[in-house]
């Protein structure tokens, strides 16, 4: 593929529905104007959507079919700070922590493209720390349910046993995603601070040179984790 071909190719990009047909029927690449890493991340995220979608659909199925009463999440996840217990407060704080981390991530992507290394680094660190805070609160939530309430994946003293299965499966899978994200955020922050993206130095898994697009791709993953939480919050905690 010569530079000239790519240039003439991109000149002919059409907008709208016609563009969709042109892009999909075109030679070599369907996703024009995006780096391959971004297209691959989106493909991964669509597959991940199906994983979480199937979890939530199964959750719906078991909740609809159980004869035992479903525990009231508003009370289960209430916390008391000295006074009367505030309903669902722990989950609300976790939601705000994750939304905040999404905001710092979006800013990190923006400052990355502006090549502002210092701001990008600190915003990535802030995102990672907020993510780690979220996981920490999840650990607290799990230990409270396991030790104090006696909830197990196969049993639940508060009512339907399916509550335990769904809770550990769905929040566990989401928490794993957050944890992986935190690890990669720290790696990315390191790469930014060392100037690896400016010098186009390859990462540990690839021979391809580093690039500020990597932060946007990282951001896609992180926002997706936040996105999944929006659905878990609505369907599992509020419903």
């Amino acid at each position, binding site marked *: *593929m*010569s*530079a000239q071909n*790519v240039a003439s190719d*991109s000149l002919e990009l059409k*907008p709208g529905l016609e*563009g*969709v047909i042109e*892009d*999909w029927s075109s030679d070599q690449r*369907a*996703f*024009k*104007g*995006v*780096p*391959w890493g971004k297209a691959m991340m*989106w493909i991964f*995220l*669509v597959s991940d*959507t199906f994983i979480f*979608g*199937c979890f939530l*659909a*199964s959750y*719906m*199925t*078991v909740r*609809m*079919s159980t*004869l035992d009463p479903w525990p009231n999440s*508003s009370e289960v996840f209430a916390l008391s700070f000295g006074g009367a217990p505030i*309903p669902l407060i722990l989950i*609300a704080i976790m*939601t*705000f922590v994750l*939304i905040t981390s*999404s*905001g710092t*991530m*979006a*800013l990190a992507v*923006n400052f990355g*493209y502006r*090549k502002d290394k210092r701001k990008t680094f600190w915003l990535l660190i802030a995102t990672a720390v907020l993510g780690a805070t979220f996981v920490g609160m999840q650990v607290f939530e799990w230990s409270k349910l396991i030790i104090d309430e*006696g909830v197990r994946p196969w049993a639940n*003293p508060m009512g339907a046993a399916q509550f335990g299965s769904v809770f550990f499966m769905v929040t566990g899978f989401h928490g794993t995603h957050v944890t992986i994200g935190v690890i990669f955020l720290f790696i990315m922050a390191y790469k930014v601070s060392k100037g690896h993206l400016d010098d186009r130095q390859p990462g540990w898994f690839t021979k391809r040179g580093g*690039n500020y*697009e990597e932060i*946007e791709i990282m*951001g*896609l993953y992180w*926002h997706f984790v936040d*996105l999944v939480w*929006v*659905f878990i*919050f*609505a369907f599992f905690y*509020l*419903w």
Partner: protein
Amino acid sequence: MEHVADGHEPVVKEEEAIQHPLGVYFKIWILLFVLSAMSYAVDYYQIQGYMRWFLILLFMVLKAGLIIAVFMHMVWERLAMVYFILLPPLLLLTFVAIGSLEADWTFFNRAIYFLQELVQTGPAPPPAH
């Protein structure tokens, strides 16, 4: 739009991607906070029934839409990719439909089976812990 670096690796010119002003992100950020607070308020003020489900779904869809559209840059992508991402998950609605049909059937059978058992043997003792 694209140039070829290192002879074989096409990359998007980075000047293209920095056009979005920071203000957009702050506005969306604040909106997400407000929407989260409102969905928490649904639980805090114990709104029940259809109103609860409607509000939960409304705030959920708005939050998800804002995150996908702005934070994940979907509004700036080409339609070929937007359709590729947004259309396949609609298939999940099929799973939801099948799942709810099956759940109703399971519930019906469990009700019949467990009720019969209850009539024959009396109520089960409380589980030991």
